[in-house]
């Protein structure tokens, strides 16, 4: 099975700053990490490879420093990686980004399955996975919580929603976006990390993937961010509990139950 995992480098902090002019996240000077949801997609891909054989290829679109997340993917167990890096990709919204990723997947060729995290923690749109499926015209399942069966021509997954789950069978090739419940991501080994330091990662530009200039970057992005503002601060209330330890414990449990926390 040939599996592509689409990953993204995101700011490490939840306190991201927004550029008031461009309405985009300021990434300069921020510590960057692999999008946490993408770790679950990577882990699932590696587990599928370990069980059924094949190859896992990590792909990202981003600036030169995004190379770090591809090396992390290799350290975790991806076989190789592709970096989509060019100033022409800058300013792409989710539609243009998913177009670029879809073109890269076409160029890789022979891909059976594309895995993505359910969303990136910086944009929180959850649109890129479905966008890739739309551009490729492949079947898709979002919010996948488990892989139930893998056949020669299809994969059966459980798809989470508010009231339970859907059991879906998808013919290959397919796109899945996954949630945290799907697995427990491994931690890279030292051997993996050292191998990742030394590996060559090819950098692909628009011409390498046959991307049309009008469909990438700002030109290819129909989204216009008109306004952004931070959410209202949460209202907090401090409850002081007094009494004997037994009384305090009872009162604490009562307060937690009132808030459906236990």
């Amino acid at each position, binding site marked *: 099975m040939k599996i592509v995992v689409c990953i993204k480098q995101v700011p490490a902090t939840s306190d991201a700053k927004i550029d008031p002019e461009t309405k985009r996240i300021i990434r300069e000077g921020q510590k960057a990490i692999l999008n*946490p949801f993408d770790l679950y997609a990577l882990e699932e891909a590696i587990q599928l490879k370990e069980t059924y054989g094949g190859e896992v290829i990590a792909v990202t679109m981003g600036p030169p420093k995004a190379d770090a997340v591809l090396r992390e993917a290799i350290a975790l167990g991806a076989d190789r990686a592709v970096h989509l890096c060019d100033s022409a990709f800058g300013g792409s919204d989710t539609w243009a980004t998913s177009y670029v990723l879809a073109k890269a997947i076409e160029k890789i060729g022979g891909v059976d399955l594309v895995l993505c995290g359910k969303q990136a923690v910086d944009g929180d749109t959850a649109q890129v996975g479905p966008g890739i499926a739309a551009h490729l015209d492949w079947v898709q399942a979002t919010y996948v919580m488990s892989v139930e069966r893998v056949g020669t021509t299809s994969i059966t997954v459980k798809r989470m929603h508010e009231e339970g789950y859907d059991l879906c069978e998808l013919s290959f090739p397919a796109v899945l976006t996954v949630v945290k419940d799907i697995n*427990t*991501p491994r931690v*890279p080994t030292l051997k993996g*990390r*050292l191998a990742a330091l030394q590996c060559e990662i090819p950098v692909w530009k628009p011409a390498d993937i046959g991307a049309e200039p009008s469909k990438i970057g700002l030109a290819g992005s129909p989204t216009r961010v008109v306004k952004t503002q931070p959410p209202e601060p949460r209202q907090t209330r401090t409850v002081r509990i007094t009494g004997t330890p037994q009384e305090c414990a009872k009162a604490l449990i009562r307060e937690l139950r009132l808030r459906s926390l236990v």
Partner: protein
Amino acid sequence: MLHHIQNRIYHVEILPPKQDSEKLLEDLDLFAFKYNRVMESGYCACITDNAMGLLAFQGTEVIEELKLPVYPEQVMIHLNTFHTKKNLDEILHSCISLGIRYLLVVSGDGSERLPKLKPADIGAEGAETVTSVELLQYIRREYPGKFTLGVAFNPYEPEEHEFAKLERKLAAGASFVITQPLIEKNPVVDRLLAKHPGLPVIVEAWMSKKLHLLSDAVGYPIPENTEYDPIETLKSLHRAYPRCGAYLSLLNFKTHYDLLRDTWQSK
């Protein structure tokens, strides 16, 4: 472990490189330097396991990768409950193949990125969660006779609770104890020594000037401007606890290592 104390063998904590290190090769060299110095000194290298929940490489994989020598009496691996079952068994198998016998079994500090053992993973279905007690039981049951197991003792926790926990740890197979950092004679540790006169106890000496971290460890604030001399503290602990070994945490190899030789004279 008793002979470590009788022969005045220091337990020197070494932190393996962190997973997010941007200078991994340098950090590996530094680890090898510290480890080899500890071996040459005849001390025991104690390698932490994701200390403070910060992702780091495992001691066993670093030793294997760097092909460092293992003298069974001179290496101790910390092992906590934040692993997958597969990873836990891999670490234990590596210890056996490398000849590492001493394990310090602790509950550990987790983080969002670290998996946590589930009771069912290690045959502890009756437990609500996996603590050092369940981990000790598992190691003793699945790897009989392979390891000498130690546990932590925290004199800053509620006293009766900590003693009850220690009894469970001893019943589960622990045969030596390492305390949280002490900066002076501690009545709870005195009680521990009186209660278990035959139990090897190693007191932790804080060898760093980072007092905010020490405050976290002891659970009460120690002002940053407090005058703190790690070597003097260590000497006073030797005087206060002549029957105990010493575990040196966050030791500065540049400024303090050479001073150790005269601090606790070898027999």
